[in-house]
C-alpha cells in the first residue's frame, strides 16, 4: 500500500501541495482527478522522487520509500518522450536494464510486452519513425517493461485513439490484478469512473475527497429518484409532495418530500402501467467532482 501523508510542496510563494494525504491500496486501480494546475503532476513527481517534497512522507507498506523501492515503480510522465534515434526494442531493453534486470530477461520482458501492445513488428524501428499512436504505446512499454510493483501514470489516456485506450485499460487492470497499487490521473472522468476502484480528487493542492468509488457515490448521493415506466408519466407533476426536476415521456427525475410520498408514487406508477425502473439517481463522478471542488 502506497501512502502519502501531509505532503507539502511550495514553488516560491505559491503553495502547490497543501498537506496531501491519501492511500493507493494494493491491487486497487486508483483514479487521480483534478483540474489543470491542481497538483496532480507535482504529487506524482514527488511519489517518484523526481521532485523533493518540502514536508510530509511517502511510504510503501508502512516503510519510507528508498531509492531501491522507487526502481521498482513504473512511471509514465505527463511530458512524454523517448530517445528518438533509438530502436524500439533497444530502448525498452535499455530501460529495463537500468532498472536492474539482466540482459536476457530484459530482452524477454520487452519482447513479450511489445507483442502484447501490438508493436512486435516495429521492434527494430527507431522511435522517431513510429506513428503517433505507436509512439504512445511505446511510452506505455517504457513504463511497464521492468515489471513494476507500483504503477504511477500521469494522464495515460490523453491523446490515445480508442483502440489504444482499450489496450491500456487492459494492461492497467492486469497490473492491478497482480496485486500492485496503481495510481493514474486523467481528465476523462468517464474512463476513470468506469475503470477505477478508488478515487482521489484534488483541487488547489488540497485533497477534496478520496475513497472507494462506491463510498463516494453513497456519500454524495442526491435525494433524487428516477422512474421509468410504460405509458406517460405526466401525472407525476400533480402527485402530492413531489417536485419533478426532469421529465421525458415515461421517464422522470424527481424529489420527494417524504418516504411516504415516494412510496405513493411507486404504487401509483404500478397501477397505471408497468414500472421498468424505480431507483435512486445514479451519481456520476462528474457530479461528485463538481460538488467537492466547488
Amino acid at each position, binding site marked *: 500500500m502506497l501512502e502519502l501523508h501531509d505532503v507539502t510542496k511550495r514553488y516560491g510563494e505559491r503553495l502547490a501541495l497543501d498537506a496531501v494525504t491519501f492511500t493507493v491500496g*494494493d491491487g486497487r486501480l486508483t483514479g487521480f482527478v483534478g483540474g489543470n494546475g491542481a497538483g496532480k503532476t507535482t504529487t506524482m*513527481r514527488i511519489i*517518484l*522522487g*523526481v*521532485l523533493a517534497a518540502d514536508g510530509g512522507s511517502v511510504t*510503501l*507498506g508502512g516503510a519510507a520509500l528508498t*531509492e*531501491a523501492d*522507487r*526502481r*521498482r*515503480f513504473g*512511471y509514465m*510522465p505527463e*511530458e*512524454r*518522450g*523517448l*530517445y*528518438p*534515434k*533509438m530502436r524500439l526494442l533497444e530502448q525498452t531493453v*535499455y*530501460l529495463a*536494464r*537500468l*532498472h*536492474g*534486470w*539482466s540482459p*536476457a*530477461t530484459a530482452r524477454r520482458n520487452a519482447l513479450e510486452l511489445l507483442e502484447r501492445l501490438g508493436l512486435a513488428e516495429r521492434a527494430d524501428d527507431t522511435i522517431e519513425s513510429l506513428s503517433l499512436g505507436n509512439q504512445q504505446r511505446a511510452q506505455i512499454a*517504457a*513504463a511497464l517493461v521492468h*515489471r513494476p*510493483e507500483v504503477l504511477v501514470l500521469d494522464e495515460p489516456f490523453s491523446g490515445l485513439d480508442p483502440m489504444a485506450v482499450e489496450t491500456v485499460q487492459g494492461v492497467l487492470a492486469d497490473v492491478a490484478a*497482480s*496485486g*500492485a497499487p496503481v495510481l493514474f490521473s486523467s481528465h476523462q472522468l468517464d474512463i476513470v469512473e468506469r475503470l477505477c476502484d478508488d478515487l482521489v480528487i484534488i483541487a488547489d493542492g488540497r485533497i477534496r475527497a478520496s475513497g472507494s468509488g462506491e463510498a463516494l457515490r453513497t456519500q454524495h448521493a442526491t435525494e433524487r429518484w428516477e422512474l421509468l415506466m410504460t405509458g406517460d408519466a405526466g401525472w407525476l407533476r400533480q402527485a402530492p409532495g413531489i417536485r419533478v426536476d426532469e421529465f421525458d415521456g415515461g421517464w422522470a427525475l424527481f424529489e420527494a418530500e417524504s418516504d411516504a410520498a415516494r412510496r405513493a408514487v411507486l404504487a401509483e406508477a404500478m397501477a397505471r402501467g408497468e414500472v421498468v425502473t424505480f431507483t435512486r439517481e445514479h451519481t456520476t463522478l462528474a457530479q461528485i467532482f463538481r460538488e467537492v471542488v466547488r
Partner: protein
Amino acid sequence: MSTPTPTRADRSRPADRADRAAPRFVDSVALIAGREIRMRFRSKAFLWSTAVLMLAVLASVVLGSIFGAQESTTKVAVVAGASVAVDGNDALEPVPAYDQDEAEEMLRAGEVEAIVAPAASEPLGITVIGLDSPPESVVAALAVEPTVELLEPAATDPTLAYLVAFGFGLVFFMSAITFGSTIAQSVVEEKQTRVVEILLSTVSARALLTGKVIGNSVMAFAQIVAIAVLAIIGLLVTGQRVLLGGLGTSVIWFVVFFAVGFVMLAALFAATAAMVSRAEDIGSVTTPVTMLVMIPYFLIIFFNDDPTVLAVMSYVPFSAPVGMPMRVFLGEAQWWEPFASLAILLATAAIAVWIGERIYRNSLLKTGPRVRLGEALQG
C-alpha cells in the same frame, strides 16, 4: 489476524526475482556510458568527421615527407669543365652537357633548373645561369659557408617547437570542442525529448551525468589515441624518425592531462547545457566554456617561445593540458612540476564536477526559458 497479507516480495514470480538485482551506481553508469558510445558510433556525422580528421592527420604526415624529400636534389646542366664544382654535392644532380648551347636548350626545355658553366675569370671558377629568376637553391648548394658555432645552443629547434605546440594545441582544442558540444547536445536532447523524466525516475542525476561524461570522455580519449597512433605509424613508415625523438615523454603527459582536463570540461559542458531546453540555445549558453577551451589554444600558438607565459599556462588548470606537456618537451619543467600541476588540475576537476552536478540536477526538469545560474546553483 486470519490470513497474512502478502508482502510485495511474495507477489513477483520467484523465477524473475533472481534476474533482478538492485542496480548499483557503477552498473547504471556503465549502461549510460555504453549507450552514449553506441549512439555516437551510429551517428553518420561522427563517423564522417572522424574519417576526415584521420585523413587530415595522415595527409599531413605523408605530405611532410614528400616535401622533405623534394628538397634534396635539383637537376643542373653541367657544361664540360665545371663538373669538379658539382661532383660530390648531395643537393645537386648533374646532367652533363657538351657545350653551353646544349645546356641552354635543356634549361629552356625545363629539363634542368640551372646551368653550371666554367668561368675562368670568376673567383670560384664557375657561373650559375638561371632562366628567369636567380636559381637560389643551386646557388645555396654551391655557396661556401663559414663554420658556425653557438655558445648557448637552443635545446630544441624553434620550428619544431612551434609545430609541437601547434599540434598539442590543435588536438586539445578540436577534441574538447567536438566532444564538449557532443555532450552538450546529448544533455539537451534528453531534456528536449522529455525522456529525462523517465530516466530520473530510474537513476540518479549523478549516475546520469557520470555516465555521459565517462562515455564521451572515452570517445574523446580513443580519438586522441587513434590520432597519436596514426601519426606515429605515419612518421615511422615515411622514415621521419627525427621528429619522434624527444616527443615521447611529453606525449604521455599530454594524454594524462588531457584525460583529466577533458572530464572537467565535459562536466562543465553538461551542466551549462542542462540550463536550456532547446538545441538552438546550446551555443549561447556554452560560450563561456568554449572560451575556456579556445584561450589556451591561442596562447600556446602565440607564446610558445615565451617561457614566462608557458610557465603560467602550465599551472592554470584550463591551459595545463597544453602548457605542461609543452614545457616537458622543451625541457623547461623540473621533474616534479607536471605532478604538481596535475594535482591542481585534479582538484579543479573535482570542484568542477561537483558544481556541474549541482547545476545539472537542479536544471534538468526545468523546461521553458533558460534557467538562471543562481537558481541552478541553489536548487
